Structure formats: structure tokens, C-alpha cells
């Protein structure tokens, strides 16, 4: 319940945050805290320094940027759920975020924190992959854009460097998108989550809880691209995935769920 002791720094700017992160290799970023603090309270995570970026209000925005929508990394889930731009241009995002956690969590948790945490069970992880989102990061060497497909490198591990901050998530405007989440109960992580969207004329599918990271169901996408039916494409949902066995579900059940939910998601699209 009580985290191990740590030092606390508050960053007044992105640059300052980058600099503070550079001073200690066991420093961690504190945004909404709703992924990090639970891990720290169980002493699974033990950073020596927390760099609080929670005051960087200029990272809270949703704005149209050409054919993309740019979302500031510190935008809170509750704000995404209400956002009028996303509601009309990329409703898949608010529809998914509405399923994250609970209202209290959504009042504090941020999209950047959620994505950067790189939990393979994360709903947003599946969605940013399905959308081919661009993750904008800033670090000591400047700014770079990381494609979602290169962002999740391992369980709870992202492509962000130790001093890099995720500052913006850029999603395409999308008319058709669906996120299906199977859970043991409403409070649970996704036993399996399936995000499907039509992006630039192509149907893309992201998976949650089907491997060590969020995954693209590439075999499903290939099958669809070559004209397969939803059912036939969905039959390939587990290819390239490695569904875990844990207390929520066995690997076999996850595999089965993935096939069923991918088919349903495609049919609902």
C-alpha cells in the first residue's frame, strides 16, 4: 500500500522534464499516475525519482491537423470521452476510452500515460495500432514521430528512450471504427480486446491481451485485403499472436475469443 520512498520533482516544461529524467536512470514520469502509482503501491515499481509532468497544461488539447487529429499526451480520458472533434472525426477513440477503468480513473488518467505504459492489455494500445497512429516524442535529441507499429516493443516497454516524453498522439480521421472488449467483469482488464477500423480504405485490426504487446492482427488484414469474408479472415486472428494464460483466462480461451470478437468487430464495421 505504501510505495518505497522516492524523490519528487515537478517539471515546469517539457524541456525541464527531459532534463530531470536525464539525471537519474531510475527516474519515471508521473502523468495521471493511474498506471504508475498502483504499481508503486504494490512495490512492483520502485523509481528513485518521480518527475511530475501533471502541470504541463499545454499538452492537453484535441485539435484537427489536416486529415489527422492531434491529441496532447496529457489529455485526460474524461476529456476525450466528451471531445466534440473526436466524436465526429474519430469516434473510435472516445468509444474505447469510455471503457477504460471507471469514472474516477478517467478523471485522472491520460492518453499519453496509458499508451506509454505499454500494457499489452491496454485498450488504447489496440486502438492506436489499428489506427496506425503516430506517437510524437520529445527527448534530448529533439522531436521524433514513432509509428504505432514500432511503438510497443515488449511487455510494458515502449520505444521511448529513458529521457523521452510522449507529447502527442496523432490519429487519422476515421468514419468506421469498433472496439470490442470481453471482460470477466466490468472492472476487469480486457480478457481480449479487438479494435477494428477502416483507415485509408484498408481494414485494420488491433488486439489487446493477445501477446506480450498490443498487436496488429496482420493475418486478418491480409485475408480481408485479398477478399476473404469476415468469418474466414477472423479465423486467422491468432496468427502471429501469443495469447497468455493467466488468472483471467487460458491461452486457448483467448484464442477462441479473438476469433469470435474479430469476426463480430468486422461485421459491425
Amino acid at each position, binding site marked *: *500500500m505504501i*510505495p518505497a*520512498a522516492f524523490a*519528487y520533482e515537478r517539471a515546469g516544461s517539457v524541456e525541464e522534464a527531459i532534463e530531470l529524467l536525464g539525471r537519474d536512470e531510475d527516474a519515471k514520469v508521473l502523468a495521471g499516475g493511474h498506471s504508475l502509482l498502483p504499481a508503486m*503501491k504494490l512495490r512492483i515499481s520502485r523509481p528513485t525519482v518521480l518527475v511530475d509532468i501533471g502541470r504541463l497544461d499545454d499538452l492537453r488539447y484535441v485539435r484537427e491537423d489536416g486529415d489527422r487529429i492531434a491529441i496532447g499526451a496529457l489529455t485526460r480520458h474524461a476529456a476525450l470521452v466528451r471531445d466534440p472533434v473526436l466524436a465526429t472525426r474519430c469516434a473510435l477513440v472516445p468509444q474505447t476510452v469510455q471503457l477504460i477503468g471507471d*469514472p474516477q*480513473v478517467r478523471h485522472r488518467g491520460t492518453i499519453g500515460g496509458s499508451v506509454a505504459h505499454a500494457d499489452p492489455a491496454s485498450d488504447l494500445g489496440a486502438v492506436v495500432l489499428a489506427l496506425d497512429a503516430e506517437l510524437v516524442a520529445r527527448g534530448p535529441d529533439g522531436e521524433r514521430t514513432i509509428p504505432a507499429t514500432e511503438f510497443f516493443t515488449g511487455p510494458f516497454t515502449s520505444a521511448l528512450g529513458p529521457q523521452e516524453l510522449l507529447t502527442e498522439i496523432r490519429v487519422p480521421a476515421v468514419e468506421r471504427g469498433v472496439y470490442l472488449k470481453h471482460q470477466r467483469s466490468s472492472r476487469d482488464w480486457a480478457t481480449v480486446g479487438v479494435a477494428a477500423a477502416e483507415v485509408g480504405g484498408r481494414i485494420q485490426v488491433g488486439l489487446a491481451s493477445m501477446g506480450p504487446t498490443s498487436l496488429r492482427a496482420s493475418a486478418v488484414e491480409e485475408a480481408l485485403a485479398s477478399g476473404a469474408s469476415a468469418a474466414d479472415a477472423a479465423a486467422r486472428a491468432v496468427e502471429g499472436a501469443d495469447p497468455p494464460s493467466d488468472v483471467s483466462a487460458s491461452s486457448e480461451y483467448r484464442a477462441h475469443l479473438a476469433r469470435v470478437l474479430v469476426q463480430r468487430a468486422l461485421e459491425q464495421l
Partner: protein
Amino acid sequence: MTRVALTVNDQRHEADVEPRQLLVYFLRETLGLKGTNVGCDTSSCGACTVLVDGESVKSCTVLAVQADGSDVTTIEGLAAEGELHPVQQAFHEQHALQCGYCTPGFVMATVSLLDENPSPSEDEIRRGLEGNLCRCTGYHNIVRAVEAAARAGA
């Protein structure tokens, strides 16, 4: 230690806190406001729910240092001495509490829910309270209380 200044139940407080002190323990132990309860260690049960800048938040998942500069309302700050806030009154009238341990958290979550959605359907109420757990009531009367509070314009 880090200095924090925040308003709690309309009273301003300043204190030096250890960075690892959770807001819930700051409220309970530094300020002596024992009404907010700790029910779990995984941010699941919502017994610790308070309002921070008007929104429901699990105070066990916020560091006191993060609440610097905030306006916090706890269960003690909902109503004046001797009175009950309409949500508290509704919980009473609908028998929406038994052992009472989850109650402050549910009341604060309800205040926030009705603030954002003044006329929720039963489904919206149940989903709006999925961050709060109760073992005694089976939730039925809690939902009725929220409906009653909504009708009363809470």
C-alpha cells in the same frame, strides 16, 4: 519533504509532506478527516473517493504532492453541520448503506456523477458507479438512492 498548499472543504491548508504520502492518508492523518476510507490497495474499490477540483477521484491513487493547489471536497465537506446533502439524504431514505464503509466513497462518486449527468438512466448509474464496490447492499438500493437524488435535483 515537499511543501503543499491546498483547499480542503473550503479551508486552506499548508503542510510539508513526504512525496510518497498518498492524498487519502494526508486527508485522514495530516488533516484528521477520517471520513474517507481506505478499502483496497489496487485502486479498485473507490471507498477513498473524494472530489478534486469538482471531479471524483480515488484519493489513494493521487499523491498529496499532486494535489498541491487543488480544491478538495471530502464527505465531511458535503453539507453544513447537522444537515445532509441531498445525496446523503437519498442514501438514508433508500436504505443504501449497511456497514457504511463504502458509503462516503459512493456518495462522493454520486455527487460527481450527477454533476456530469443530472438525469442518468439505471444503466448509466450502474456504469457510472463501476469504480465503487460494496459488499453489503448488492447495489440495488444505492442505484435507487442515486435515482432519488437525481429526481430531487441533487
